[in-house]
């Protein structure tokens, strides 16, 4: 809830200011030093509502579904292992890359580069930190790819998954209903 509120609140405020005040609308009303538009505020509420719902559903999925479970479910359904790799690897490797960036920055400081404090304050020295990090990333991808091949990754069309999460009893029905509702809503929007 805190994360959702902290993310949504600034967006809502920005949308209210943008649609309700800054953008010109036919029903602008002056109220002291402020101007506001009812039509604009309604548009802001609609957009805020949609963004909030999208964010809430994404966060709900992230909070209730560990990435490992998602990866296993995708593998069990026969989805390309490459796709599940794309989901999992950033989550697993981001901390290691952050540590690497820190170590690279230290190495450059020890050579005389004055990059104390946040990097954005030293734009000209960014290249001294970014280049080794990017090269490390590319080299890592190349070596990891070889290691994955060595362990028969994508050698066969399907793989065996241990500890795969089982589907709930009504899960498939709910998913089909949601899909139907989405198609219906799309149809209604086109109709109007």
């Amino acid at each position, binding site marked *: 809830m805190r994360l959702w509120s902290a993310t949504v609140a600034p967006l809502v405020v920005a949308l209210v200011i943008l649609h309700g005040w800054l953008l010109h609308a036919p029903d602008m009303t002056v109220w002291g030093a402020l101007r506001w538009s009812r039509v604009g505020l309604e548009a802001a509420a609609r957009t805020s509502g949609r963004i909030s719902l999208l964010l809430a559903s994404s966060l709900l999925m992230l909070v209730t579904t560990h990435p490992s479970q998602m990866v296993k479910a995708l593998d069990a359904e026969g989805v390309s292992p490459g796709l599940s790799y794309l989901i999992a690897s950033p989550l697993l490797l981001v901390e290691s890359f952050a540590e*690497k960036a820190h*170590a*690279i920055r*230290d*190495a*450059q*400081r*020890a*050579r*005389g*580069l*004055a*990059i*104390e404090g946040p990097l954005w304050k030293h734009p000209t020295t960014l*290249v*001294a930190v970014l*280049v*080794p990090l990017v*090269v*490390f990333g590319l*080299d890592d991808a190349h070596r990891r790819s070889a290691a994955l091949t060595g362990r028969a990754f994508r050698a066969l069309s399907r793989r065996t998954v241990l500890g795969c999460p089982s589907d709930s009893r009504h899960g498939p029905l709910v998913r089909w209903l949601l899909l139907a509702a989405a198609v219906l809503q799309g149809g209604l929007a086109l109709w109007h």
Partner: protein
Amino acid sequence: MLVAENLGFAYASQEPVLAQVTFSVAASRMTAVVGRNGAGKSTLLRLCNGLLTPSTGCVLVDGVDTRSVPASNLAKVVGTVFESPEHQFFKAQVAEEVSFGPKQLGLNHRQVTQRVTEALARTGLQEFASVHPLDLDRTSQRFVALASALVMKPRLLLLDEIQQGMDALAVRRLETLLSEEKAAGVAVVFVCHDMEFVARNSDDVLLFHGGQLLSADSPMVVFSASTLLQNAGLAAPECLQLSSRLGLRPALYPKHLVVSWRHYLSGTDPTKSDSEAQRERILKFPSASKDGEPS
């Protein structure tokens, strides 16, 4: 050149990594820092080059408190070679990479070229001057990182596992370089897991365990303290182990072990000089052959 007084360090809200560490390293001395993983060795190096700020105590480099100047300023005096040399490479050629430091110092083109040429020659990298550093093998990359440090003419050189993965030829080249630096007055502090390398190259050894400095003395004294070594989870150099198990006079190096062995076999006093021992052998065994063995 380097003084640590009651040095202590802890990362935010964690157990101390180093506590109450006091030692000094003079110019023209090679000091090895040994200990198990997690003993605080790499943290110590980062405190000595100003990348980390002490939680307690202080580090003085050539009389300057590391807390009073940024790490980038200390780089004029302190050269560091980290365990992963590729962290610093961002130029397309070895020569450009090595010239980066002197350019930061504000040297003119002629001075930079002179220093870079000298550094590449000393580290055996002349033929790789135009090569991309990342196209080199790991050992050559370490020498590029070393050249990048030497080119700054530091007065304190900090090395983190620089000899790791090097073959015997490369190790000899490295040892020659370090001797030259020592002879030129540079203080060298190196973290090392290879006890043979430590035995051959260090004047002093700092033995760490659990963030504490257990011993700071000559290699023979530190490696002979078997209880301390055991507590620190380390093994003595092989010759010292062998001389101890054979009941010989302690020897760090093969040639000293063989001298002790020769005395042991001939029953002479190993504390005597070779000529005195020879005289003793002749007195004991008048018909002895040339090598002093009984005929």
